């Protein structure tokens, strides 16, 4: 199913584009014929039920999974023609953190984001510029005080901020975030997405956020892509997508959509019917 590109601010460059993408994973088709574009200064959210193919789509966009068909263009060039490092300079991923088995400080962790800019692949030392970038993102994510601590000593929310900091340290203009708020409490959820919003506004970055949290998406995203069973169900602005009949069909649950009292955007509340005993 091909759909039209959603609201795009006039004059903004197209950064990452997927055309008619199909991706198989685990011997089944996880993503079928999806097209999307990521434009500068825009946040696109992907929402949908479990197994809709959201994370697989994200992984295909950064080159980790090879699509079965379709094409992905990064700044107009096909993704498969680019080498790993040049992709990493343009696309950064914030995903769930793997278990850390070796001690590493926050600063060292964040400096990992500068790898793609190293002049020698695999060897070399961090430059003065690398350090300044790292320090700037640590400030941005409010981790300066913790920069000398070991990653294992940080709380869940702090670790997520460090992951964010590392992605920001790559200076990549395209950010792909996979469930970035999954383990965060309320205050940190908002903070993290505000960071992304700032980046987009300030540096004209493009961001793609895969999330379960529909209301967070509603608040921060410029475009929403709603997926079901690997396909695009619909896409558009939050107002266009977050309509009761659409959400009920996709999530198979009754919802109530009203206007958020503060932001004015759509606010989605699932309605649980009490179980009737017959």
């Amino acid at each position: 199913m091909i759909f039209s590109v959603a609201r795009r601010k006039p004059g903004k460059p197209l950064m990452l584009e997927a055309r008619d993408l199909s991706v198989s994973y685990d011997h089944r088709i996880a993503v079928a014929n999806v097209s999307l574009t990521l434009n500068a200064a825009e946040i696109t959210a992907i929402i949908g039920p479990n197994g809709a193919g959201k994370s697989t789509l994200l992984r295909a966009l950064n080159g980790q999974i090879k699509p079965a068909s379709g094409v992905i263009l990064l700044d107009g060039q096909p993704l498969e023609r680019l080498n790993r490092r040049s992709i990493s300079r343009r696309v950064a991923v914030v995903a769930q953190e793997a278990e850390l088995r070796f001690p590493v400080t926050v600063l060292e962790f964040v400096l990992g984001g500068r790898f793609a800019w190293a002049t020698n692949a695999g060897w070399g030392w961090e430059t003065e510029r690398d350090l300044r970038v790292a320090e700037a993102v640590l400030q941005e994510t409010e981790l300066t005080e913790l920069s000398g601590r070991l990653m294992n000593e940080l709380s869940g929310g702090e670790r997520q901020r460090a992951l964010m900091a590392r992605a920001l340290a790559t200076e990549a203009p395209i950010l792909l975030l996979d469930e970035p708020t999954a383990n965060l409490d309320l205050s940190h959820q908002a903070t993290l997405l505000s960071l992304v919003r700032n980046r987009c506004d300030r540096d004209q970055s493009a961001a793609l956020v895969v999330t379960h949290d529909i209301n967070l998406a509603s608040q921060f995203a410029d475009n929403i892509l709603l997926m079901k069973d690997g396909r695009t169900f619909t896409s558009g602005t939050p107002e266009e997508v977050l309509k009761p009949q659409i959400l009920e069909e996709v999530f198979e649950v009754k919802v109530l959509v009203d206007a958020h009292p503060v932001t004015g955007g759509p606010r989605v509340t699932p309605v649980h019917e009490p179980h009737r005993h017959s």
Partner: protein
Amino acid sequence: MSSTASNIVTSPARQNRVTLRKTVVSCLALTIALLLSIVLMSLIGSEQLPARASLCALASFGTSSCGLTRDQFDILFQIRLPRILLAAAVGGSLATAGAAYQALLRNPLAEPYLLGISNGAAVGTMIALIFFGASEWTRPFLAFTGALLATLAVYRLARGRAGATPERLVLAGVIVTTFLSSVIVFVTTLMDATRIRSFTFWLLGDLSGTSRTLLPVAITITIVGALALTLNARSLNLLMLGERDAFDLGVEVGRVRVVVFVVASLLVGSSVAASGSVGYVGLVVPHLARLSLGSDNRISIPAAALGGALFVIVADTVARTIIAPRELPVGAITALIGAPLFIYLLKRA
């Protein structure tokens, strides 16, 4: 720039980072310790040599005998020094391979022996000895082949749905090790009783084999291998934190994996072909290096190489003097030192 920025510049985190300077200084210190140990340990052995004359002869690089008798000179330069250099090569190779496996597999317990690589190399060497006994070159070659085949077997066994996770890799390694151990035992029972004894000794690590042609090969492989792995240290730093993360940040994971497997097989193969399986070096030395210098592979891999050389030189000196004129297999000593040390390290972690 606010005041917090200037705090960062002088922050302890920044200072404690591993830098080129730190690496060079540590490696220089370890190299000096290594050279000192080579000189000092060559003065110790089952036969007494006059210290001053020996030092003089060593300083002259063997051009002058400095008053040593013909036999003393031969003992020093034909028997002891080559053995010490071989110990350095074996120790450096095994420690470097261990450090690389630990980084790649994200498991501080990964070690050539535990993963079955050493046994693969041992089987290769045994085949070389039995079928091509006369030709020396077949030994390191078949040992390398055996090590590589064992690596591939471990990797295939470990590949599950989620890729080859570190846990599955170590489990597969244990399976391959025990299987190859049985093969080795089986082959030794086919030998007659007299050869069994010498094979068993060799399997535990024996540095007394003097091969004039293979020693320079072993040393070269150690240096080249350690360099090759150090040049991938930054990639390994990221791989150590997670394969997916490393991929996202720009590491060519597949390529680095191949490099580590091939180079480590080369290092293990050349060591085992020369001296049998010397255990614990690949486990204990990289641990010590990381504990004292940090997990950054740019410093811990070269430090492990130098430290491993030092460790085996000392262990071998004990092995060849403690019940002189008899000898113990050096693997027995590395196990005796390594096992309690490892328990201590585990407790600290």
